[in-house]
């Protein structure tokens, strides 16, 4: 029986389809990680603003994104937005948006943490050599903050990759769904298919996320 199971993966285009699904996951993850990194840095800096209003606004955004499940965000952006504004957005685009919104919030919080953990005299030394506030951020604060937040940021990236499987709700088919399609097709003939398919997916995720974690560790060590 079990040697049947693994065959399922090599029937037809199945293995390729799984890889394609992984490609979809990765595409969403990469796009949203890039957007989140850029926007997250700005959000993080805003969160260290001296104006209470700005800070609490950012904070509310963060809390809102954290509390409302991604599933709901997907529904809202894909279905509700269309119903209310008649805006037809492609599903994968919506996935990118939602994951970016989430990633930006989380990344912003990490950036805030990293920036506030820098000693105050770094900022002051920057000012003391005549840099403008923006230049201080650009040359002094951010380069150091980025080094500090790297481990947790990578953590977030792997989490985002793993969470992409939610997008199936708005019809974007990624690796996990393709796995389930393969499994369900074999429901009567190859009941053990699920183990093999899930094992492959487990492995695929691992093979993507692990090197990223390793790379982060490497950088962390190098920047000590």
């Amino acid at each position: 029986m079990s040697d049947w199971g693994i065959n399922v993966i090599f029937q037809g285009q199945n293995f390729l389809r799984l890889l394609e699904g992984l490609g979809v996951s990765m595409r969403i993850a990469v796009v949203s990680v890039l957007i989140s990194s850029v926007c997250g840095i700005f959000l993080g800096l805003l969160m260290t603003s001296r104006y209470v209003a700005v800070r609490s606004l950012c904070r509310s955004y963060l809390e809102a994104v954290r509390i409302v499940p991604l599933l709901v965000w997907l529904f809202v952006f894909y279905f509700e937005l269309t119903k209310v504004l008649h805006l037809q957005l492609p599903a994968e685009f919506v996935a990118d948006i939602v994951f970016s919104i989430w990633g930006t919030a989380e990344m912003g919080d990490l950036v805030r943490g990293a920036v506030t953990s820098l000693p105050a005299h770094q900022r002051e030394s920057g000012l003391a050599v005549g840099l403008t506030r923006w230049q201080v951020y650009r040359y002094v604060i951010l380069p150091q903050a980025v080094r500090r937040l790297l481990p947790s940021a990578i953590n977030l990236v792997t989490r985002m990759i793993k969470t992409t499987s939610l997008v199936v709700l708005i019809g974007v088919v990624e690796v996990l769904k393709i796995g389930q399609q393969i499994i369900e097709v074999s429901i009567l003939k190859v009941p053990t298919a699920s183990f093999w398919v899930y094992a492959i997916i487990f492995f695929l995720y691992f093979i993507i996320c692990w090197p990223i974690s390793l790379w982060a560790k490497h950088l962390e060590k190098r920047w000590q």
Partner: protein
Amino acid sequence: GSDAQTDKVKTSASSSASAIEQIKQRGKLRVAVFSDKPPFGYVDQNGKNQGYDVYFAHRLAKDLLGDENAVEFVLTEAAARIEVLEADKVDITLANFTVTPERKEKVDFAAPYMKVALGVVSPTGEPVTDVSQLKGKKLIVNKGTTAETYFAKNYPDIELLKYDQNTEAFQALKDGRGAALAHDNTLVFAWARENPGFTVGITKLGDLDTIAPAVKKGNTELLNWVNDEVTKLGAENFFHKDFETTLLPAYGDSVKPDDVVVEGGKL
């Protein structure tokens, strides 16, 4: 699979424009189908949509647009079947969509093209032959299926174990996590035949439920067209052909066509 959603950002045309005109202009009929519910709607090993619903969808496209491939499949989940219509993501939902009063409030169902009854499968050693035997035991069902709705409404005191995927539900039955499993009797029969040690103790349960195409609420033009279509197809016994092509290979002779197929929208 996901290339179904290649349309660019655009606002949907004003609702006054004829719905069928819109489809014709687009040149594609958009249909919501399942991707993991063989043999009704699934994706085969080559990535192509297949199944009873899909076969029907191709025919609709052919009759509306003159090309059976002028159809765009939007893969959907049980929980999103109505949303895709309401948000104008598709024109028709053909996703094993059982007609219920609650759903009727949200979408317009056309004439049915299939019927199901529930079956309950259980281990041969401890067969469940009557619903009353399930009191105080766990019954396995699938989320979003007729079985779930039926038991939730009629037997609220039976504890339901609800799974997302059919395979998982059957696996759970095998692992003994519930006393029995309730699902469409067609699937249950077919599964029991492949898995010795299990029998379908209850072969028909409750009212016969019908499965019908659904369109967005108020889209009477398309609704009427689909109704006409179903009637027309009845004349040529289309759904029997559909059955032979898609269901027979999966179910074999465990299911008789007339237990499933509805021709011309008439039970």
